[in-house]
């Protein structure tokens, strides 16, 4: 009864358990659609849940059994979508890569200051004090809560407004959550113009505080060939699904509030 028997008994238990598991796996194997396994191999395996399913295996199952779209995996991107589409014999739609865009052009040269803020230099703190030092109560506070939230170094404060580097942006949405003014939007990564303003005050009021704020004049709605633009609360909104990127609205906007987001790169 020395160490030998101890080792043998514990190893014996282990081996018996292993044999039982192998036999069980062999004889009680449940036939699963083999495509599920193939799709799981295409997916990143991070189980992040960005697709809306419980994990990569669950998403693969949904693709095969519930006919889910193959392009929902954001970390996997186009490669994962192409792989899954190949297994399913489908054509992969464009992967909906999202990019952050800061819907504000209240640069120091465009917007005045209400007061000089001296305090904790975060947007969350500054925006608690009379909606922030900027004269526009809706615009960027400029203390960079989004910059701190970004793990990819894709944001930077330039002249008092956060700008997104579209090259570095992965579309994770962390900045949008961090922004106390909710002016950072996640939009599809394509060439559609966006309204870079959140001000819902009446036009005259907006005009007083910012030279590039949307005044709700509705001129853009008249020029849009697909009726993609609607104005509510004195603020134009472009429906990204209808927009054909003809850029008529951007050309006609009297205050230049409509811009292409991907031109707003900083180097």
């Amino acid at each position: 009864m020395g160490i030998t028997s101890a080792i043998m008994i514990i190893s014996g238990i282990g081996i018996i358990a292993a044999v039982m598991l192998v036999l069980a796996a062999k004889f009680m194997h449940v036939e699963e659609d083999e495509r599920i396994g193939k799709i799981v191999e295409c997916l990143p395996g991070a189980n992040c849940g960005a697709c809306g399913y419980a994990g990569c295996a669950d998403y693969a199952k949904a693709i095969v059994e519930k006919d889910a779209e193959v392009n929902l995996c954001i970390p996997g991107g186009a490669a994962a979508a192409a792989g899954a589409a190949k297994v399913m014999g489908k054509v992969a739609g464009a992967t909906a890569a999202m990019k952050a865009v800061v819907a504000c052009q209240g640069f120091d040269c465009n917007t005045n200051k209400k007061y000089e803020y001296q305090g904790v230099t975060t947007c969350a703190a500054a925006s608690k004090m009379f909606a922030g030092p900027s004269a526009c109560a809706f615009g960027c506070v400029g203390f960079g809560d989004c910059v701190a939230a970004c793990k990819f170094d894709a944001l930077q404060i330039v002249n008092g407004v956060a700008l997104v580097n579209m090259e570095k942006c992965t579309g994770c949405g962390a900045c949008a959550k961090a922004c106390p003014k909710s002016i950072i939007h996640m939009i599809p990564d394509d060439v559609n113009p966006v309204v870079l303003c959140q001000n819902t005050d009446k036009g005259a009021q907006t005009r007083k505080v910012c030279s590039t704020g949307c005044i709700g004049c509705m001129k853009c709605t008249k020029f849009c060939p697909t009726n993609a633009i609607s104005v509510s609360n004195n603020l134009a909104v472009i429906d990204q699904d209808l927009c054909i990127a003809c850029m008529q609205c951007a050309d006609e906007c009297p205050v230049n509030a409509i811009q292409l987001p991907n031109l707003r790169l900083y180097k």
Partner: protein
Amino acid sequence: MAKLASIFFSMMLVNNYVLVKFMGICPFLGVSKKLDSSVGMSAAVTFVMLMATAATWPIYNYLLIPNGLEYLSTIAFILIIAALVQLVEIILKKYIPGLYSSLGVYLPLITTNCAILGVTLLNVESGYTFVESMVASAGAGIGFLIAMVLFTGVRSTLEYAKPPKSFEGLPITLVAASLVAVSFMGFGGIIESLFGTF
């Protein structure tokens, strides 16, 4: 019979594994946000506790004790429980798919849960017979269920509370858990009064 009842209620209330022995805190804090998932988790824990006791008790008494290997019970039990949970998962998947899909998510999670290991180890250390061990496991599982369901209720109220910033999230949850645990101290002594001492 009185002894079985005494063991059952003592495991359930007085020696509650979560709130008194502080075992299985991980699922207790992790899965107690929603009522249906906490009940699912508790059902899986109870099920695995019973299976694990049924498997480890004979091995301890008929294999480890005769060879003088009681000191290896921890590692042997880990081995047995891990293999057992895998086996149960395969069997459920094949023959009872309904139960598999309701317990399936939780089964692999509790393979290495210390409440399961704790029940099996404490059962053999207390010198229970096989039937007593099974009753103790059932009591421990029901106790886990009671703790989970109670705490889910506490936690749903906690969602609306506005604690100071530094207490938000896990700290206030732990404070709430400790208060629920203190309330279980109130059960101390009732087993002796109800069923006498053994």
